[in-house]
């Protein structure tokens, strides 16, 4: 097991390098950072433009891409104060990125915790008694929720609870002009975005869990467990649920991407200053110095969660061969 983990960790290094290089190329080809710089700073001098190119390693030609990638990487790993500055007002990138990151993690954590927990609970309730009214109710609600794109539920909730009823704030993280830290106000601003993402997550996990539970429910070893004299409750807890959680563990790790994706959409609608707003803003202006750190953080976390998914699966299911 330890050797397996070490080997997979070592493999991570070339994988991260390769994937981030691909992202680098995609961003350079896709956004053309020189052009976006000129668009954002139409009156920039030739000298300033050259300086921007040098700092960001925007060399021309195929070799220039490789050289540029490594020069960018070198600046990146030296730490945030060495990172190139934003093309808009040459502000430092890390302070806003860190601020967005924490705002998003707070939303993502709450939404994932609630969504996965409640979703698994309903999945078990439904899957335990397939074919009953509880099962079909959970199933149809999950079905309808799954058919509603997150931005639709976001605008509808915003219209209903914030604009029409006025119960909850429609946007932002604090009311305009608020100073300092206030958990109550912050919590109030988090409710709608969290609910939007949590609803999606609940629907997904209720369906996953139900399917996994039904898969396991027909297994012969449950009959053995009953034949040993365990009660239905014990069979459910010790065998059925335990075994059906194994595939779910993998889904959770991979699904972090989906939860973040849902948040990017939701944050923009509620104008919540997180990663989503950061990204859409950087993508629309083509702000190379802001796009790259964002995409690299996303890439690395996706790869790490993928690794965690593999490891958890290998750990939880002894039948998986470690090679």
């Amino acid at each position, binding site marked *: 097991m330890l050797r397996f983990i070490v080997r997979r960790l070592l493999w991570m290094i070339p994988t991260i390098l390769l994937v981030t290089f691909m992202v680098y190329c995609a961003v350079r080809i896709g956004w053309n950072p020189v052009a976006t710089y000129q668009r954002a700073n139409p009156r920039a001098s030739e000298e300033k433009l050259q300086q921007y190119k040098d700092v960001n390693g925007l060399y021309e030609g195929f070799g220039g891409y490789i050289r540029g990638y490594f020069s960018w990487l070198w600046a990146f790993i030296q730490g945030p104060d060495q990172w190139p500055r934003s093309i808009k007002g040459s502000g430092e990138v890390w302070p806003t990125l860190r601020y967005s990151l924490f705002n998003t993690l707070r939303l993502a954590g709450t939404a994932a915790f609630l969504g996965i927990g409640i979703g698994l609970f309903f999945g078990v309730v439904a899957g335990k008694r397939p074919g009953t009214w509880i099962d079909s109710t959970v199933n149809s609600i999950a079905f309808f929720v799954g058919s509603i794109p997150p931005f639709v539920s976001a605008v509808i909730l915003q219209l209903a609870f914030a604009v029409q009823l006025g119960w909850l704030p429609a946007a932002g993280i604090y009311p305009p002009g608020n100073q300092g830290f206030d958990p109550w106000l912050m919590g109030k601003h988090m409710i709608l975005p969290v609910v939007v993402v949590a609803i999606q997550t609940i629907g997904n996990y209720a369906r996953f869990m139900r399917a996994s539970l039904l898969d396991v429910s027909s297994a012969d070893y449950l009959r053995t467990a009953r034949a040993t*004299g365990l009660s239905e409750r014990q069979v459910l807890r010790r065998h059925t649920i335990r075994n059906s959680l194994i595939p779910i563990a993998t889904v959770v790790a991979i699904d972090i991407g989906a939860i973040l994706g849902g948040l990017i959409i939701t944050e923009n609608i509620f104008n919540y200053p997180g990663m989503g707003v950061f990204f859409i803003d950087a993508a629309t202006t083509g702000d190379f110095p802001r796009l790259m750190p964002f995409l690299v953080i996303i890439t690395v976390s996706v790869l790490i969660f993928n690794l965690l998914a593999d490891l958890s699966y290998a750990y939880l299911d002894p*039948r998986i061969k470690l090679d």
Partner: protein
Amino acid sequence: MTGEAASVLTLRDLRVQFGTPNGPVKAVRGVDLDLAPGEILGVVGESGSGKSVTFLAMLGLLPKSAEITGSAKVNDTELVGASNRLMRSIRGRRVSMIFQDPLSALNPVRRVGDQIVEMIRSHQDISKKSAASRAVDLLGTVGIPQPLQRSEQYPHEFSGGMRQRVMIAMAIANDPQVLIADEPTTALDVTVQAQILEVIDDLRAQMGMAVVMITHDLGVIARVADRVQVMYAGRVVEKTNVESLFANPTHPYTEGLLRSIPVLGHQRLIPIPGSPPNMLRPPSGCAFRPRCPYALEECAGEVPALEPVGASESACVRAESLNLRVLT
């Protein structure tokens, strides 16, 4: 034969019916059985004859759609209609069961030792530690080499025969009086089959445990059983001891079964024509009638009851007049 009083397991007119959208399926239609301590009773029949269902029903292991009537007593404890609590105290304690496919019958993600410990601790109030050492002893008893190391392994790390030994170790963990073995050798290689039967036979001798050996394989019966009940379409059609089963079958279905096993140096195999009846609409009278070469008009009338014929009991109206023989 031992008398009624000594019987550890008694079934009287046990019936099982499944409600389906197309109507009720009568899977078991009145089974009587007596099992003496320490004997091995073979229950033979084709798949779908209700042989497994009878015992699963007795232990309450069928889905809820099953309706069970009649009587099933372990010693003097009635199981039909028993509370869940009572049923749990019987399962794994007084009556244990092992199944056909030991790979799927064991939880793939738990160590075999833990699974045996769970079995012990669901009936005995002992510490995890002593249950674990008992589990290792049990694995040794059923002939698994290096039981200590093996108890730390997962089911997929065992061979088929070894897995079935694990199942047996688990089943005997609480010294049950009755072991129900549901086709325990069907999924195994022939050489391994013999070893497993030997383990079961030895344990029966050591522990004085009675065994119900459910099988479709008459070779298994010949090897271990004392007495035999042949089942067809949810009923017992012949009750006999193992010698007369092979020498003088008294039911045409038994004869058919015997004729369809290969015997060296004898004529070609004769399969039983047709297939087992659809239990949604079983034939009237004797259920074997449509496939029976000796069937008469009268066979369609009343359902024939088991009647003594020589040393056996047969549910064939023509049992006396037919001179059934296997090796012609």
